Each structure stands twice: as structure tokens, then as C-alpha cells.
């Protein structure tokens, strides 16, 4: 290792400096949004780079009083959690079967699953609205959970499949010898071994659910509306309400960003689809 350890000045000084600059640059828009959310609307549009000002919580208070933030937030949590659970519930057995008992069709099934993600949502929005309204499930938690599950299922199956493939078959075989049945295999051997992969898959699925806007905005009105809908209704045009806008935005993305920070390591694993080694 000693040979590779660079001693050049770039490595010692420039690299950290450059890295910090890049990191701060990427974070800056989020920082600016959070900063603006504590400004009055008058301060927020001042044509100067206002870093120091008298912070106010008005925007947040206004938001919880007038926009019913908590209802949207609760809906986001409920639908994302249940959709993630349901996706895993359907996805784990499927990925398990594909990884441990692959048939000739497995590859095609996987490809086909991914191709359902390429169906443009806009193309089928109208039929879906029509259908869900006539079934009477429009704007229900049930519908949103179902839709979120279905749009994320292909990615989840892919991720789980790549994790499960990593597990040595011998371990499962040994379990079979000991007379463990299939359910036992999944519960006692597979899930504990692939726990990291399952957790990171769940995390990514949750993030995609939370951020999903197209379907959740268009298939809800009030009952099951999530934070995406709150943003959609409040993207106050022409910059007159930057303070308010920032508060709503920060409150919508805040929870998921913090979650992302805590679960960073898991996420790195999860995002790689197990294929990066």
C-alpha cells in the first residue's frame, strides 16, 4: 500500500479542498432553500445575497395552520411504508425463486419486468383515471399503495435478485439436508443472510415512493394526497412567496434527506444492484 499512497501535493492539499468545494456546491441549493424558509417573504426576494437576517418561523407556522401539512405528511408515510412492505412481500419470493431455481425464461422475465418501467405513465394515465374512478378506488390509500408498489416492483425484484444470487447455494442445500422446508429456508436462512440487501432495497423503494409525483398527484384529490400533492398545489408562481414555498419544500424533502443520511451505507450497497464488485 505504501507505494500507492501518493505524496504529491495534489493529494495532500488540493484534493480535500476541491472535494469540499464540490460537496458544498452540490449541497448549496438545499442549503439556500432551508435558509430562505426562515426568511420573511420580503427578505426572501431582496436582490442581495442575504446570509444574515432575522430568522422567522412564520413560514412553517403558516404552513401547518393553513395547509394541513401533517395530513399530507401522514399520507406520505402511510402509503410509502405500506407500498414498500407490499413490494417486498411480493418481490422477495419472486426474486428468491429466480435466483435459486432459474429457468430458461428467468432472464426474459426479468427483462420484461424492467420494460414495464418504460411504459410512459402519461400514456396510460387517462385509462387509469377512468378505471379507478369507475371502480370507486380513486383517491384512496389502497390505490396509491398499489400503484407505488407496482411501479417499484421491477426495480425491487432486480435488486433482490442480484443480492440473492450472491448467496452460496451450498448454504441453502445444507438447509435442505437438515429438512428445512421452503418457508423455513426463506425465513431462517435467506432473510438473515441477505438482510443488508433487503434493507437497502427497502430503503431505496421507500425513497422512490416518497418522491413519486406523477401518479400520486393525478390519482388523488384530498383523501390520499401525499406531500408531492402539497408541493404541486403550492409552487407559488413568479417568486412572490419564496419564504412560504421554501418552507413547504423543506418540510417535504427534509424527512427523506435525513433518513438518507442515516442510511447512507445501506444505500450505497443497495444502489449498486449487487453488480458492482
Amino acid at each position, binding site marked *: 500500500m505504501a507505494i500507492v499512497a501518493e505524496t504529491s501535493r495534489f493529494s495532500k492539499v488540493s484534493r480535500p479542498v476541491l472535494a469540499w468545494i464540490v460537496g458544498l456546491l452540490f449541497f448549496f*441549493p438545499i442549503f439556500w432553500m432551508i435558509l430562505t424558509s426562515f426568511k420573511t417573504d420580503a427578505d426572501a426576494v431582496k436582490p442581495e445575497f442575504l446570509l444574515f437576517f432575522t430568522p422567522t418561523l412564520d413560514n412553517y407556522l403558516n404552513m401547518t395552520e393553513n395547509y394541513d401539512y401533517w395530513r399530507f405528511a401522514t399520507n406520505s408515510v402511510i402509503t410509502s411504508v405500506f407500498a414498500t412492505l407490499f413490494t417486498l412481500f411480493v418481490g422477495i419470493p419472486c426474486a428468491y425463486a429466480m435466483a435459486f431455481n432459474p429457468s430458461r425464461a428467468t432472464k426474459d422475465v426479468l427483462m420484461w419486468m424492467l420494460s414495464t418501467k418504460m411504459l410512459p405513465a402519461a400514456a396510460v394515465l387517462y385509462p387509469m383515471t377512468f378505471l379507478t374512478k369507475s371502480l370507486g378506488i380513486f383517491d384512496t390509500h389502497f390505490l396509491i399503495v398499489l400503484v407505488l408498489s407496482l411501479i417499484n416492483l421491477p426495480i425491487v425484484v432486480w435488486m433482490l435478485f442480484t443480492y440473492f444470487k450472491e448467496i452460496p447455494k451450498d448454504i441453502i442445500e445444507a438447509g435442505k439436508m437438515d429438512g428445512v422446508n421452503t418457508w423455513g429456508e426463506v425465513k431462517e436462512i435467506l432473510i438473515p443472510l441477505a438482510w443488508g440487501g433487503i434493507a437497502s432495497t427497502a430503503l431505496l423503494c421507500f425513497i422512490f415512493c416518497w418522491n413519486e409525483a406523477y401518479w400520486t398527484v393525478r390519482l388523488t384529490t384530498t383523501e390520499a394526497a401525499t406531500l408531492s400533492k402539497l408541493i404541486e398545489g403550492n409552487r407559488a408562481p413568479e417568486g412572490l412567496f419564496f419564504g412560504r414555498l421554501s418552507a413547504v419544500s423543506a418540510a417535504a424533502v427534509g424527512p427523506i434527506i435525513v433518513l438518507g443520511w442515516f442510511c447512507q451505507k445501506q444505500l450505497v450497497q443497495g444502489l449498486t444492484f449487487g453488480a458492482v464488485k
Partner: protein
Amino acid sequence: MSDRKLPRLLQTPAVVLLLIWMLIPLGMTLYFSFIRYVLNSLRRPEWTSPSLSNWRGFGNYQFVLNNKDFLFAIQNSLVIVCSILFLTVILGVLIAVLINKSFPGQGIVRVLLISPFFVMPAVNAVLWINMILDPVLGLQGLAVGGINGVITSLQNAPGVGWFFSLWPQLEPISFRATQTSAYAVIIMVTWQWTPFAVLIFMTSLQSEDQQQKEAAVLDGASTWSQFRFLTLPHLSRPIAIVVMIQAIFHLSLYAEIEIVSRGNGNKNLPYLIGEFANNNIGAASATGIFAVILANIVAIFLLRMIGKTLME
């Protein structure tokens, strides 16, 4: 139960659900694309509900093909997707290489870097177009004003003043305009998805063969040729993955386009479908079928590229 049946049984729920999810709406879209179906038609009320007696054959497809926005929307879809892919992969590789070695505060920098990936697309668009890219109220206006101020003050500087007096005053750019709104979308999506690329490349770099690198250093390989002949080939698989996932997500970009310009000069196929769907469901459905075809063409390319490596 036999060894063959159980695996199939376990796959069934997922396969059936996805099949329904695909077939029913797609079937309806296909059906609507062949009939006259207009939501508001006072003159021909029979067109306002779907019925086989309104059969139009390929009329909707012809109508869409003759629409002046159609080809533009396809082009623009591809321009946006390809630009974002190009930028995120290049930036992703550079940043991943930059932060791969440990340095003080590496963990914090990583946290800062990945944050944009968690931001909702709608928030992303609202934030960028209003507070950052807006020529008057956004930071762009401030930045341009600042640069102009610096140039003006340098013009009075002794000695070099003549040089700076040749410089033009910068004008803020309106990113809601016809010619520039696609750039705004590219900028904001690149900001959001570069962290994704960085994360994947970084993970991959950590598993790079260090002995090989040491050998290369001993052989006197320059940093550049190490990067070119060792790191880049090592990254080819993760690059393929990044390209595939992102292409899937960006072909259906919608929120960003709507928020930036309401499609003004910057339509993509999903947006064009949305516009048609305000009234002409037949045309919207026909456009949808075109979008499905486009997505499948892209998919074939992508799957060729990546299918093998993933199944190994």
C-alpha cells in the same frame, strides 16, 4: 410439491400483478388510439364517450404524425435524456475519483454530495427555476450582477483597465424562454442524478484491484494512464448500470418540464401526451403508443448493452 412447481408459484404474484398493470391500461390506450374520443365536443356529442362506433382506424396516428410538435418532442426527449446521461456519467466519474481517497471530512462531503438525490423532482424544479435560475429574483441575477460589478471596477484599475473595458457586460439568461428551458431541465436533473452516479462509481472504485495499481505504479505508469487503462475499464459495468437506470427514469420526465416552461419550446413525449389528454384522448393515446415504441427501441439498445453482464 415438485421442485419445478414451487419456484413458479413464488413468481406468480409478481408476474401476474405486473402483467395486469401493463396489459389493462395498455390495452385501453391501444383501444382509445383507434377511436375518436374527445372530451369536449359540443358539435359531436357522440365523440365524448368511448365507443367502437367511433372507429377512426389510423386517423389518430396520422393526426399525431402531422402535429408540428411531434417530431420536436421526440428529438427533445432524446436530447434531454442523452445530455443528462453524458453529464452525470462524466461528472460522476470525476467526483467519484476525487473523493475516493480518504481526506479530512470525507464522510461529511459524501453526505453533502448525495443529498440532492433525495429531493423530490417537483421540489427540485421549483427550487431551481424560482430561486436559483430566475434572472431577476434568483441567485443567477445576483451572480451576473456581481460579475458585472467586478468587471466594472476592474475597468478603472490602472494598467489593466483597458483590457477589461473590452469585456461585455453579462446579461442574465431567462431559463423559461423557448430556447433555454431545456437547459434548465438538464441542469436540474443533472444536479439530482449526479450523486446517484457518484455513489455507484465510488462503491465500484473501492473494490478496484490495488495490487494491479501498485504494479502499474512500479512500472512507472502515469496517473492518467492508470486512470485510462485500469480505472475506466473497471468502471465500465457500473457506467452501463447508471446509463440504464437513468434512461428508464428520464424518458418519462414530466414535473420538471411542466414547472419550468409549461412545455414552451421544451416538450418531450410524455408532456405532449399530457397536452393532448386535456381534450383529445384519441390523439393522446396514439402518442402514448408512439412513446411505448420509442421506449422499447431505447430498451433494446440498453438491454443489449447490459443484459449479459447482469446475468453473469
